[in-house]
């Protein structure tokens, strides 16, 4: 599965478009990590727990999007965009969407 955030895939041609696919997830870290991040706020620096949280959420959203694309028998998702929104404090919501396409190699 080829995933890009540009409108085409270099070296390949879009044979057909299969429709829009999307994946979303809402995740949170446990309360002790929240408290830890609260303390880290005082001295500043990277909040590792929340970085990890965002990574997990993004991975899950993209995986869900790819799963949808597989069901449409596509072999690529192009022009993928990521959007986030804050559903509640301490939770991350990631939404990934793109267009599933059937790609083929350009000969020669």
């Amino acid at each position, binding site marked *: 599965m080829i995933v890009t955030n540009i409108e085409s895939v270099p070296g390949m041609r879009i044979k057909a478009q*299969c429709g829009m696919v999307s994946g979303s997830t809402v995740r949170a870290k446990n309360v002790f990590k929240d408290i830890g991040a609260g303390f880290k706020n005082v001295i500043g620096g990277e909040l590792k727990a929340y970085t990890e949280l965002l990574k997990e959420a993004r991975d899950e959203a993209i995986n869900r999007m790819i799963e*949808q694309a597989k069901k449409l028998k596509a072999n690529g998702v192009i022009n993928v965009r990521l959007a986030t929104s804050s559903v509640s404090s*301490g939770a991350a919501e990631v939404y990934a969407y793109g267009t599933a396409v059937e790609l083929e190699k350009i000969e020669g």
Partner: protein
Amino acid sequence: MTNREDLQAALIQDDNINVSKTNEGFNLLIFLGGLIFVVILIIAFFGTISDIFISNMSDKTQMKVERLISFNSSPPRPDIKYNKNIEKLNEIKNIIISKDKSLRGKSNFPIFILEDSNVNACIFPNGTIYITSETLKQRYKDDELAFILAHEIGHYAHRDHLRIFSRQILIGLALSSLGCQNASMANILNGITDIESLAHSRSQEKNADIYASNMLIKMYGSNKGGKDFIKKIQEKENSPEFLKYFSTHPSWQDRLKILENS
């Protein structure tokens, strides 16, 4: 193209990938159970710490803390018509103090009368005892009055006030850091601590009853006075059995059983 549209239709009709297949109600029950378990562990942990702390507190510190947290307002003006009763109560009180070595050098337990239509008594952290006027009107016998006084002094001897204060400070601090995130957590934590503090209060009352029963045995050779007192109260008050889980005292039946077993 129809093939592609079929695939899209299948995607729409299929189980939604973006929504986890979980039963929300069942899930909530499991996590709520887990949360209650964690909170009970925290309460047990900090409750034990506070108990150890208060038990090992020296008498000198106890007196200092008592003076700090005691009610500072002037006691009600003694009514002349109760003078006789107070004299009698003071006599009984002095016998109780002389029977318990651990009370020596602490409070001298001044007794005051409160105008009230219920039979009741209470003790303040510095040992001041209040007894309602209705209790005097009931013409209880000496050993019954001794049970009432010994029960209240039992609270003092067990440092029950200090235990409640230290528990509330420690557990309150620990739980507020978990529950400050949102209102739902605060609701749940409030509910659990309410029920738990009632249970703690009941165990304190039970221990005070046992103390009073032992004191009566030392004074009169038996705890008959306590049993008589509870039986008299039982005749007047009759509350349903299940309410005992939502009150600060054990039910009268249970208190009678405590006396019979000790």
